[in-house]
């Protein structure tokens, strides 16, 4: 069997085994549905509640995407500012770090006091996604081949030409890595804020559905919502990986398939 088929087949096999065990355990020990629903019940809920879950997913994903977009733009822009003006870097870098190391779960309740809920969710998605973009783009911009910099200087390139024709393309691989991390994190940020808002929130995001279902002891729906949520996370990861691959495949080592 080829390596490719194995890489697809083996995880599916593992999944099937886990689902089977889950099913058997629930059956054999006769676990009630409000403690642990079996996979069949979860699947049925997923189909029955599909419209509700889908609408909630769209709410969460929209805020995640907006937060991610703002983080991407802000992170790259600030990284460029750091790279161009040292004073900006010295002034703001410590605060970017503080924003990153303070757990988002602790910030979310505060944001919910001052901001309307959707905005607070957006802010959380932005805060956690921002730093990886900033840090990796800064690293990329600072690790340009010094001989190429000398070459640009020799041909009397302007600062903008150096940035646009040399530093940004050179930083692209690191920037894309940062964006890939940021995509997953912005979903986490959005979910954290929705959960912190909890029953007080008027929102209808997917994380809010989980909290709500918990209060109502609708455990099958909790599982169904969780399933949709992790599926969304996987989708974000794959989309961003595909973009990264398409952007780099022609020239960067990381995207090249080598025969061995």
């Amino acid at each position, binding site marked *: 069997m080829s390596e490719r088929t194995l890489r697809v087949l083996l995880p599916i096999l593992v999944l099937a085994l886990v689902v089977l065990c889950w099913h058997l355990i629930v059956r054999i020990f006769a676990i009630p549905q409000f403690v642990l629903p079996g996979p069949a019940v979860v699947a049925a809920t997923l189909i029955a509640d599909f419209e509700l879950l889908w609408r909630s997913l769209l709410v969460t994903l929209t805020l995640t995407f907006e937060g991610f977009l703002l983080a991407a733009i802000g992170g790259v822009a600030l990284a460029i500012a750091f790279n161009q003006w040292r004073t900006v870097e010295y002034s703001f870098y410590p605060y970017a770090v503080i924003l990153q190391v303070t757990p988002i779960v602790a910030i979310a309740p505060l944001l919910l006091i001052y901001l309307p809920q959707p905005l607070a969710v957006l802010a959380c998605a932005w805060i956690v996604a921002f730093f990886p973009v900033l840090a990796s783009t800064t690293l990329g911009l600072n690790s340009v*081949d010094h*001989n*190429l910099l*000398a*070459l*640009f*200087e*020799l*041909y*009397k*390139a302007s600062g903008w*030409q150096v940035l646009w*024709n*040399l530093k940004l*393309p*050179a930083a*692209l691989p690191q920037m894309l890595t940062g964006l890939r991390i940021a995509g997953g994190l912005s979903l986490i940020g959005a979910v954290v804020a929705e959960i912190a808002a909890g029953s007080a929130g008027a929102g209808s995001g997917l994380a809010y559905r989980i909290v709500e279902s918990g209060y109502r002891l609708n455990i099958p729906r909790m599982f169904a919502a969780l399933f949709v949520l992790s599926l969304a996370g996987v989708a974000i990861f794959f989309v961003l990986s595909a973009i990264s691959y398409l952007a780099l495949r*022609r*020239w*960067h*080592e990381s995207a*090249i398939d080598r025969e061995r």
Partner: protein
Amino acid sequence: MSDRPAISLHKIGKTFNRGVRALDDVNLDVREGEFVSLLGPSGCGKSTVLRIIAGLSTPTGGTVDWPHGAGKIGFVFQEPTLMPWATVAGNVRLPFKLAGADKASSRHLVEQSLERVGLAEFADAFPRELSGGMKMRASIARALVTEPQLLLMDEPFAALDEITRFKLNNDLLSVWQELRRTVIFVTHSVFESVYLSQRIVVMTPRPGSVFTEIEIPEPYPRNEGFRTSPEYAGFCRQVAQALAEAMARGALP
């Protein structure tokens, strides 16, 4: 070829901020159209001399004179220094792009330059698809594309295998004979310097300064016949001896 100096280095000194004295009292005249090699052990400041001539580094003492004005300069680094995200043609076009020229106006010159180094077929390839020797050819094509009056080469073939290096030596010489531009070539190889140059400037290490100059009055075109001739062997012996004396002059091996 005329005898008028194109560049004149006068008492050039360079001390880095860390206090390292890289160059001390370097005097050098290079005639227009001349092929000169700077020969010396690593750490003797050969590369620093090139960077000062290119204006990429400022000397802490002395002057660089251009009696006929500073013209365009081409620079070839030790590594190919290509942009991996651009095609070979894109890399060669860079000087025009930075000068604000549009693609169409420079196309012919880019093609011509690639043709000259034998890379015409690889215009659309990316650097990673090329061998080490071909990357260096692309780098030379980029340096030549603006038709510079002066070509500065900083140990360009040091990282290549011997077979590729010999081939590139020959191709460089034929390009030089065709264009007759001034070339200043930095190397630590006695054999390479004798094979290529009209004149070899032997440098002492720490701080770098000119130890002696040796003329190689052999006619061009030079080819494999010259490489195996007794005259070549004789010059190599003479230059190697001068290099040994220069190194003995320096404080450290």
